[in-house]
């Protein structure tokens, strides 16, 4: 599985916002995207996930594991998204959150077992029935990542996912995330302001908005 972007140009009105001639992200690779505010980092992620606002115009193609996903609706792309906030659905339990993205093929006991196994692997065994609002920040971040992984994504887009965590926690969650991406062989795009994130990612750094 790899992520490839060809000839991407995004404009807002007449104003070009972002141009990306070519970018390929290998399985397990984390490419860090940096740049000042307004450089188009979030716009790039929105384009990739298929939720670009109608006000923007985009040209170019996105390939995922050899498939052209440019015109697929967001829910068919299987591109995982993580934001600054964990965005766990507050009306669902931890287990229900995890099962939300789990493929419908898996049913009943097998489905519950899959969720329980994922929780156990993340050292959250027994957290299934819990109210997400009662979890600590680090636990919530891990559940959010698990939820994304259980949906069997083909790529990961990370929109400053560590910026709201305190420093002590940040490193652990970061390592946990990158390890998971490598283990699953997912191409990753990480948008961040924090050079430490880029350093930890250890991959290429793409600077937007600078020439």
């Amino acid at each position, binding site marked *: 599985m790899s992520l490839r972007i060809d000839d991407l140009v995004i404009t807002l009105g007449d104003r070009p916002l972002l141009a990306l001639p070519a970018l390929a992200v290998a399985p397990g690779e984390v490419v860090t995207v940096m740049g000042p505010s307004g450089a188009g980092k979030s716009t790039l992620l929105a384009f990739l*996930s*298929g*939720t670009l606002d109608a006000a923007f115009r985009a040209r170019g193609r996105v390939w995922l594991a050899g498939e052209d996903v440019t015109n697929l*609706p*967001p*829910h*068919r*792309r*299987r*591109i*995982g*998204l993580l*934001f600054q*906030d964990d*965005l*766990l*659905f*507050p*009306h669902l*339990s931890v287990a229900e959150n995890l099962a*939300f*993205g789990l*493929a419908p093929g898996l049913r009943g006991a097998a489905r519950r077992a899959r969720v329980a196994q994922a929780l156990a692997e993340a050292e959250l065994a027994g957290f299934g029935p819990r*109210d*997400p*609002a*009662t979890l600590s920040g680090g636990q919530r971040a891990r559940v959010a990542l698990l*939820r*994304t992984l259980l*949906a069997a*994504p083909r790529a990961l*887009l990370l929109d400053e996912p560590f910026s709201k965590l305190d420093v002590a926690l940040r490193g652990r969650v970061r390592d946990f995330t990158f390890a998971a991406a490598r283990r699953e062989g997912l191409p990753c795009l990480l948008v961040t302001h924090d050079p430490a994130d880029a350093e930890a990612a250890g991959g290429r750094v793409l600077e937007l908005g600078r020439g």
Partner: protein
Amino acid sequence: MRAAPWLTATLFLGPLAAGLAGTLLPAFGYLPALGGDSLSLDPWRALLAAPGLARSVMLTLGSGLAATLVALLLVLGFCAVTQGSAWARRAQAALAPVLATPHAALAIGFAFLVAPSGWLARLASPWATGWDRPPDLPIPGDPWGLALVLGLVLKEVPYLLLMAFAALGQVPASASLRAAAALGHRPVPAWFKLVLPQIYPQLRLPICAVLAFSLSVVDVALILGPGTPPTLAVLVLRWFGDRDLALWFPAAAGAVLLLGLVLGAILAWRLGERAVAALGRRWIATGHRGGQALLLRALAPAALGLLLAASLAGLAALIAWSLAGPWRFPEALPAGWTLRVWRAQSAEIAGPARATLLVAVLSTLAALGLVLAWLESGAGRRLRALVWLPLLLPQLAFLFGWQVALVRLGLDGTLAAVVWTHLLFVLPYVLLSLADPWAALDPRYARSAAALGAGPWRVFWAVKLRLLLRPLLVAAAVGFAVSVGLYLPTLFAGAGRITTLTTEAVTLAAGADRRVLGAYAALQAALPLLAYALAAALPAWLHRHRQGMRP
């Protein structure tokens, strides 16, 4: 989904256009079915020659403007003196039941309270007043319309207060006052100088709706207003109901006159706004720091508390009468309590109660469906102004013409017609209460869900609706309460065949047994209260283990 705004617009424009045309044309003599096949000014001549018209118009203008002004001043005064204190929240919670109660039930309860033989007189007699018989005082129904004004204020204050609190939540009120305090301004005058100009733009539309409603209301005017002559709206309704259909022509002209009065009053209000704003700017420019506003500090909360107490006591009076055994004047309480009226009336009250529920549930569901589709499509922002039209036009000005159109369509007296007509008034309030929560929902939830493989329908049902369950149910309760309280729309579209607790209660208010009236009005008030309670209890129960879903 994209069609929703246009579908809604059609559902709105149809009745409004047909209704206005069907009122305007007869007002100028054109109604071929009754032999009026050319335009003329005869209807206007007949209208102007009607006994009592001049007094009726004065009464309408006076009571409508007074009710709006008094309600607004009370609300602003209260907001100014309670800014930042816990009282504001408490008042909002305490006024919720009043907000839910239909106008008619409040008015009937108020009449039960203040009439010469009402509860207040009974409580104070004969030990304080010396009355062993009720005094011969013209309350309610005084020729000046004071009871009518008070009855309207009772209901409009909670509504405007809610709107004011909503507006205050969106402006940096406390920060503005802190800045003013740092410059040596006292809080209450500073509130009027700094906060009021910020929230007023958001209050303008609700105020205009209150003004239009107060000028053209029929049910409250029938219950609390004078009868000889009555307000213009009641006069026009009388003519529309006369067996001599030739009176439809002056009635239509009267409805157009009422429309003119409402539009004129709104225009005058806007001019008044400017004048007040100009004076206010001059006041601000003088740099006066203002006084302590001690009088206002005492008066505004006291007046509000009095209104609240009057509303609740009125509702209690409804229940008390429906359960009263013998209750002679001036006894403070009935000699005994009995379920006799409820038992005797249960069969008769069941029909209107069912119809009330059915119409309210169907019109609320229809409104919710349209509003959700509308909001979800993200389109039609400009069409929103249209949705306000039914609240800004006098109901009589288009309901008569709409009724004629319904007869043509063969729909009069059907459930569909009543639900459709209720929709015109339910939908604006549903949209109003849902639009802000909908816009405030973090769009990243939907994006997260889509990234997890959920299609648009699943995102809508399993994420958005569930996250917005509380405001959704509140909007539904508001819509339900609006529908339950509608009088004229039910009267016209229901053609007498579909009667609700409201139409029955207003009919009974003309003087039947207070026990029976109390039962109808109490039930009419109870239904919306139950809906509000359900809207509060259901999410609380569903989310009892979900801290993140608590308000």
